[in-house]
């Protein structure tokens, strides 16, 4: 392994670990914040870092300049044949930045219809007042229309208008985008509040502060506990959670030009990302491929199951070593539950292997990108896998091993300080990783519908409907963002499950695992096998029908994603209609004083 490869591997490990640890902190925060949001009360939001205003301004402005430069400079490079697509991209970015900025200003400044604006600042200038005349939603709809319009008008532009081989058009478009970003950054920098500026990150610092607190807490060991095993258990619980992600690809394979022509990746090559790749995404001859998974193993998912299966050892040892009956009960429950559900977990995914013909996660993801997402190919397996996965991560409704109202805290009852913190972090990382696994196996990994490695291409069967070429860099960036975005969506879904459902009783859980999930998983294997055989023997016509069905599934996903995001943003921008009962004397007094302004620490 060359030094460069080592460097790349370290970068990849840093990205994955950074993502997992940050997401663990964020999900801890979200779990704790959920209750505060529902109840409309103060959430955990005490941790704050005060920054001098000049520093905040410098960060905002400097960040803006950096991003602007990072966007503008590559646009001046020559990429023959991509002029139209690059002009479109530049204009799209510019439009996006403009309407988002206007929307944010309006949302920040605009008063509600009743004049009570609990979270609002009020206008600073005549410009802001004018911007605030329109509701945030108006900016959103207008921006959306502008983006779609730009997409189609750029396609309609006459071919002669774009000078082939010249970087002038894309350069101007890129500079336009950079200008918009610079303006937005400059405006934000000018709007930074009074010195010192409190940095709370919406309360997310609180979770980090908790971790710091845990490190300094006293580490108690109960009398009679096994000294070695007691200390070993938290490490055993956290370790598998951290290493399982190694085989998951978090972006499409990057192709670098072999700049120094030595067929080995060197630092010089790293600076030369291939401008475009073919529609299959495979690197052409003379290019060096860098896979975006830490280890692209052929055993892929088997590795995941093998390592994740050892997670139970930590729980079992913790339960045994604590010298506490409740902890022992928790350890026993954890062991039997995880062993039982491991079976269903493994069997439910077998159908997917049969269809895709591989257990390599990279290939599995690529198969989904070329055909259809796993959830459409194996809907039953998805449900089974989701249930078994929640059970594996020991979260509600399967949190018997730690069910706090029954066996107090289960196997980590006697742990305190950072040892407790390690169990906690390990659990949340497992939770994030379970979302990663769902995304990789059933939601197409980093793929977006119709986004091929060389650009956007909407097809139905063999008919081409729309095409927009994109550079390798743009597609790779979209892929990485997509992967992490999808993961966060899955985390969000699982958080909802946790906050909605009560927990099973222990025997009900076992019955569900062995008498429902297991037979259904076996049935799924049989059905899938029959379907695969039928497809192979049927030949061409059925194959075409399946291809069209796959494209329809992709369009469904695309439509659902678009509609979902529009609904989501519209919902976020809904004018707040708080109905307060103002009959009490305290409420009337507050109303006479000009309404209630939410405190800084309010959720």
């Amino acid at each position, binding site marked *: 392994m060359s030094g460069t490869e080592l460097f790349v591997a370290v970068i990849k490990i840093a990205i994955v670990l950074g993502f997992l640890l940050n997401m663990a902190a964020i999900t801890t925060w979200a779990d704790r914040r959920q209750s505060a949001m529902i*109840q409309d009360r103060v959430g955990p939001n005490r941790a704050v870092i005060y920054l001098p205003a000049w520093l905040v301004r410098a960060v905002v402005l400097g960040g803006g300049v950096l991003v602007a430069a990072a966007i503008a400079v590559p646009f001046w490079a020559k990429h023959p044949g991509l002029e139209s697509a690059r002009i479109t991209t530049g204009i799209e970015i510019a439009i996006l930045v403009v309407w988002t900025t206007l929307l944010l200003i309006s949302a920040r400044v605009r008063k509600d219809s009743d004049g009570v604006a609990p979270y609002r600042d009020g206008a600073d200038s005549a410009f802001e007042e004018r911007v605030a005349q329109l509701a945030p939603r108006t900016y959103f709809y207008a921006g959306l229309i502008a983006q779609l319009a730009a997409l189609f008008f750029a396609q309609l532009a006459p071919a002669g208008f774009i000078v082939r081989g010249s970087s002038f058009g894309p350069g101007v478009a890129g500079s336009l985008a950079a200008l918009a970003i610079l303006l937005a950054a400059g405006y934000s920098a000018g709007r930074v509040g009074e010195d010192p500026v409190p940095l709370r990150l919406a309360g997310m610092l609180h979770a980090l502060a908790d971790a710091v607190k845990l490190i300094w807490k006293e580490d108690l060991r109960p009398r009679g506990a096994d000294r070695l095993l007691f200390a070993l258990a938290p490490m055993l619980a956290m370790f598998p959670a951290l290493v399982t992600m190694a085989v998951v690809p978090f972006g499409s394979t990057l192709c670098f030009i072999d700049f120094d022509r030595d067929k080995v990746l060197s630092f010089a090559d790293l600076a030369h990302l291939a401008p475009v790749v073919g529609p299959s995404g495979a690197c052409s001859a003379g290019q060096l491929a860098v896979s975006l998974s830490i280890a692209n193993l052929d055993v892929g998912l088997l590795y995941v199951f093998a390592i994740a299966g050892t997670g139970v050892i930590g729980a079992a040892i913790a339960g045994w070593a604590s010298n506490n009956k409740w902890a022992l009960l928790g350890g026993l429950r954890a062991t039997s539950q995880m062993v039982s559900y491991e079976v269903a977990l493994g069997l439910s995914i077998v159908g997917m292997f049969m269809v895709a013909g591989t257990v390599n996660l990279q290939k599995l993801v690529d198969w989904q990108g070329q055909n259809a997402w796993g959830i459409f190919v194996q809907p039953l397996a998805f449900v089974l896998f989701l249930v078994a996965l929640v059970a594996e991560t020991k979260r509600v409704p399967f949190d018997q091993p730690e069910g*706090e109202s029954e066996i*107090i805290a289960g196997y980590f009852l006697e742990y305190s300080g950072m040892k407790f913190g390690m169990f906690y972090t390990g659990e949340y990382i497992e939770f994030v990783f379970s979302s990663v696994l769902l995304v990789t196996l059933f939601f197409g990994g980093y793929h977006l519908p119709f986004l091929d490695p060389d650009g956007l291409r909407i097809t139905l069967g063999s008919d081409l409907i729309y095409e927009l070429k994109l550079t390798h860099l743009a597609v790779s960036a979209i892929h990485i963002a997509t992967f992490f975005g999808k993961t966060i969506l899955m985390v969000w879904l699982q958080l909802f499950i946790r906050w909605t459902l009560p*927990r099973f*009783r222990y*025997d009900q859980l076992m019955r569900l695992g062995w008498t429902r999930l297991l037979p259904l998983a076996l049935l799924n294997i049989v059905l899938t096998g029959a379907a695969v055989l039928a497809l192979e023997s049927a030949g061409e016509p059925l194959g075409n029908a399946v291809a069209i069905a796959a494209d329809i599934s992709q369009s469904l996903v695309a439509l659902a994603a678009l509609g979902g995001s529009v609904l989501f943003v519209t919902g976020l921008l809904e004018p707040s209609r708080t109905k307060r009962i103002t009959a009490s004397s*305290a409420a009337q007094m507050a109303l006479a004083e000009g309404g209630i302004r939410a405190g800084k620490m309010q959720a």
Partner: protein
Amino acid sequence: MEPLDVELEDGELELPNDPMQVLMGPAHPAMHGTIRIALELSGETIRKADVQIGYLHRGFEKMCERGTWTQCFPYVDRLNYASPLLNNVGFALAVEKMLSVTVPERCQHYRVALGELARICDHLVCLGAMAMELGAFTPFLYYVKARELIWDVFEEETGARVTHSFGRVGGMALPPTPFFKEMVRSAVPAVLALVDDGEKLLLKNRIFLDRIENVGVMGKDMALALGWTGVVLRATGVPYDVRKSHPYMTYDRYEFEVPVGTRGDCYDRFMCRAEEMRQSARIIEQALDMMADDGPVSIEDPRIVLPAKDEVYSTIEGTIQHFKIVMEGIQVPAGECYSYTEAGNGELGFYIVSDGSGTPYRVRIRPPCFASTQGLERMIVGAMLPDVVPTFGSINMIGGECDH
């Protein structure tokens, strides 16, 4: 190679299979109200259970013998701290029975309205805690939010959110505020809407139903034998409600129904409580309609009710009257009586004895929880460890009144 059928001595290679003894409580998350259950487990099945109470014993009855009758009100607040106003009214009624006085009708409606609000609070806490202990956190938050709406009303009326000490012998501490009806009429529908939201999350949920159906079953006869009253008794199918069977105050003039269960399991207790909240809302509505907007809330007897503050400061009669009641207490004629009302958990009885002085000679409370907690052991033996949680939650044991 040794033969496989080698004779093993009995128990030589067997693991010890003594049942596991665990103490659930008093510092156990599900044992709210501080109670301890000594359990003997076989696996997770409960072989034996010994319910031990007394961890919240505060000598309430003895404390009452130290001060005046009026000074008992803060103590009775803390009996069932989920619905203090019901206890206040219950105690006031007991002393008024000894004095043979009846409060004005406006006050009776006021007491009923406040009491039924407190009952809704009580049931909200019970159902919310029960759901939360089964892991369903969101319904709990809905219920607590609903309780918050009622507590806002209480805060406005009594000045306190939890322990109001608002009852007085011969009336209430203060007349209703001018906003009272408006506030209650806007709060109660909002509360019921939140209750509906919470129920939608729970009762359409297979997991929740599996956890509470046929769990903690109690038969009708055994419930009566144990002296159960209130919701837990009605859930077994006995339609005994003090408000219907022995109406006190103005309860005979309201239209409301008494929900009863059929099986006496956790599900029935849950549903009875949920339905009682809706019936309480009906009662509140009627009480508000019947309650006059002005008129006295306290009886006009200077020996029982404190004079207005301006009279205390400006007239000698007022000063003396105030002094006598505060320093010597209300002179309750010698004798004894038992007075009982329907509190949040069942029949709350006060057996009081007076020796004719301003201080109670004896105050004996008949807490509904004491009887229901007796039945806990019968409900959980043979069940699994996790079943203790909904069963204990559904009988709503409140340590304050149980450990009297």
